C-alpha cells in the first residue's frame, strides 16, 4: 500500500505545489492525470524516492521512503519499484539482453535468461535480443525499457508518459502489458499521462 499525505513541493521562485493525499492498494491500477507542467513528473519523483518533498510523508508497504538514505534507498527502490521514464535510457554499449542482465545484477538477483526471454516475448521484441539500442526505433526502445521495469517483478510499476511515443496499436499493447504484468505479479500500477487514449482502461484516476 502506498500512502501519500500532506505532500508539498516548491521549486525555487515558483509557487509551491500541494498534492492531494492518496492511498493506493497493492493491486490497484491508477492513472495520474494532468496537463504538461502540472507536476505529474514531480509527483512520480517524490513517490519513487528520487525527490524529497518540502513537506509530507511517502509510505510504501510500511516503509517511510524518506527515512531511507543513500544506498539503502537505491536498494529498496530497485527491489520494490519498476520505473519507466519518458526516455528509454538504455546503456548504448550493451545489447538489449545485456541491458536486462544489468537490471538483474544491480537488483542483486540471479541471472535469469528465461525470465528475460519471457518478458521480451510478451513485449514482442524478442527478435531484437542481441541488437544494440541505436539499432532500435523509439517505440522499440520504449518497449525494452518497459521490459526492464517489469523484469524483476516489482511491487509497484510506475511509468511516466509510457505511451506518448507509441502508435495506437502499440500504445494499447503496451498498456495491456502494463495491466497484465501488474496483475500477474500482484503489483500496483501507477501511470502518469496526458494521453487521452489511456483513460478508459483505468478505474482510479488522480487529477492534479
Amino acid at each position, binding site marked *: 500500500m502506498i500512502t501519500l499525505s500532506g505532500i508539498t513541493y516548491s521549486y525555487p521562485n515558483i509557487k509551491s505545489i500541494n498534492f492531494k493525499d492518496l492511498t493506493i492498494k497493492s493491486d490497484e491500477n491508477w492513472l495520474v492525470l494532468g496537463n504538461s507542467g502540472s507536476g505529474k*513528473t514531480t509527483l512520480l*519523483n517524490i513517490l519513487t524516492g*528520487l*525527490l524529497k518533498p518540502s513537506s509530507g510523508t511517502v509510505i510504501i508497504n510500511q516503509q517511510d521512503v524518506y527515512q531511507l538514505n*543513500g*544506498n539503502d534507498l*537505491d*536498494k529498496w*527502490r*530497485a*527491489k520494490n519499484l519498476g*520505473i519507466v*521514464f519518458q*526516455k528509454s*535510457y*538504455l*546503456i*548504448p*554499449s*550493451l545489447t538489449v539482453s*545485456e541491458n536486462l*542482465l*544489468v*537490471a*538483474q*545484477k*544491480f*537488483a*542483486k538477483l540471479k*541471472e535469469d535468461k528465461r525470465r528475460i526471454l519471457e518478458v521480451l516475448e510478451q513485449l514482442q521484441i524478442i527478435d531484437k535480443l542481441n541488437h544494440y539500442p541505436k539499432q532500435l526505433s523509439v517505440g522499440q526502445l520504449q518497449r525494452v525499457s518497459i521490459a*526492464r521495469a517489469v523484469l524483476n517483478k516489482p511491487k509497484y510499476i510506475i511509468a511516466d508518459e509510457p505511451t506518448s511515443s507509441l502508435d495506437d496499436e502499440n500504445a494499447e499493447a503496451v498498456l495491456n502489458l502494463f495491466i497484465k504484468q501488474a496483475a500477474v505479479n500482484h503489483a500496483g500500477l501507477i501511470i502518469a499521462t496526458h494521453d487521452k487514449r489511456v483513460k478508459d482502461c483505468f478505474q482510479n484516476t488522480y487529477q492534479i
Partner: protein
Amino acid sequence: MTIVEISLKALKAKKLSSFLSVLLVAFGMAIITTLILVSHQLTQKLERNAAYVDAVVGAKGSPLQLILSSVYFIDFPTGNIPLKEFEEIQKNRMVKMAVPIALGDSYEGYRIVGTQPSFLKLHQLELATGKLWSKNFEVIIGADVAKAKNIKLGALIYGSHGLTSGAEVHEEHAYQVVGILKKQNTSADQLVLTQLSSIWAMHSHENIVEEEQDITSILIQYRSPVSTVLFPKMVNEQTNLQAASPAIESARLFSLVGIGFDVLHYFAILIIVIAAISVFITLFSSLKERKYDLAVLRILGASKQQLFFMMLIEGIILTFIGALFGLVAGHILVDVLGSLDGESQILFSGFMFLKGEIYVIVAGVMLGIIASIIPAVHVYRYDIAKILNN
C-alpha cells in the same frame, strides 16, 4: 554481467579514443621498459667483463679508449707498446697477474686476440671442447663465434687485417680452431684467442725482429686493493705508459651516457602524463552522454560506490592494457636493438625479465586511478533525480 564487463563494453563502444589512450600509455611504458632493460644489461655486461681486471696498462691516450678496447673489445686500441714493458710490469711486486694482449686482426668482425694462457685464467674461462693452442696459428674461439659461424674443432678460419670485417684477408695463413670456450656472457664469447707469436708471425712479412715485438696492452690483477691508488700513479709517473681502471672508466662512461638516459626518461614521463590526460578526457567527455545511463543504473539498484568503481575500472583497464603492451613492446625493441648491432660486443636480449618491470605494471594501474578519480568522484556525486528530470 559484472562491473568489469560493463566497463569493458563501455570502452569497446568508444574504440578510437580508447585506442589512443592505450597507445599513449604503451608508448611511454615501452620507453621506460627499454631504459630499464638496456641500463641493467649494460651495467651487468660492463661489470662482468671487468670483474677480474683491476687495471689496464697501455700506450698513452684516452684511458676510456684503453679500457673499451682491452676489456670490452669495442673501441680501437690506443697504440702499441713493446713486449719488454710487459716483462717489466710483470716483475712489479704489486702485480699478482699480468696478461698481455695484442689486437689488430679480426675474423668476420670477431676480434682476434693474441695473448697468453693466463688470459683464460684471469677471466676464469673454461674450454667447452678441445684444447689450448700449442703452436702458432692455433686458436680457441668464443661460444658465440662458434655458434654464429657454425665452426667445429679443426676448422680453418682466415683472419683479416683491421678490426672490422671486409678488410684485407690474410690468405697466406689460416688459423686452425683447436678449442671452443664455454659460454660466459661476456665479451670473451665473441673473441678468437691465439698466442702472441701467431699475431707476430701473421705479419712476419713486415720483418719484425724480436726487439720490435709489440703488444697492445696489459691486463693487471693486483695483489692487494692498496695498489688501486699506488700502481696507476707509479705507471703514469715512471713510464711512458698509462694505467687505467675499468671501474673508474666505466663509471665515467655511464655518467656520459647517463645524460641521454635521463633525457629519454623525462621524455617517457612526459608521454605518460599526456596519456593520463588523454584517459581523463576520454572518460570525462563521455560522461556528458552517459550520465543518463549511469543515473538509470542507480535506479536499477547500483550504489554510488559501484558507479565510482566502474569509472575507476575503466581508467585502470586502459592504462593496464597500455602498460602490458608497453612492456611487450619494450622487450621486442631491446631484442631488435640487440640483433641489429652485430658488430658491437654488447648484445642486448629482450628475453630477460627484471623485478623492476613489476613497477611498470603497478605504475600503469596507479596512472589509471589518477586519471579516472575525478570522473569517478563526479559520477559518485550525481543527483539522479535532476539528471532524469531533464
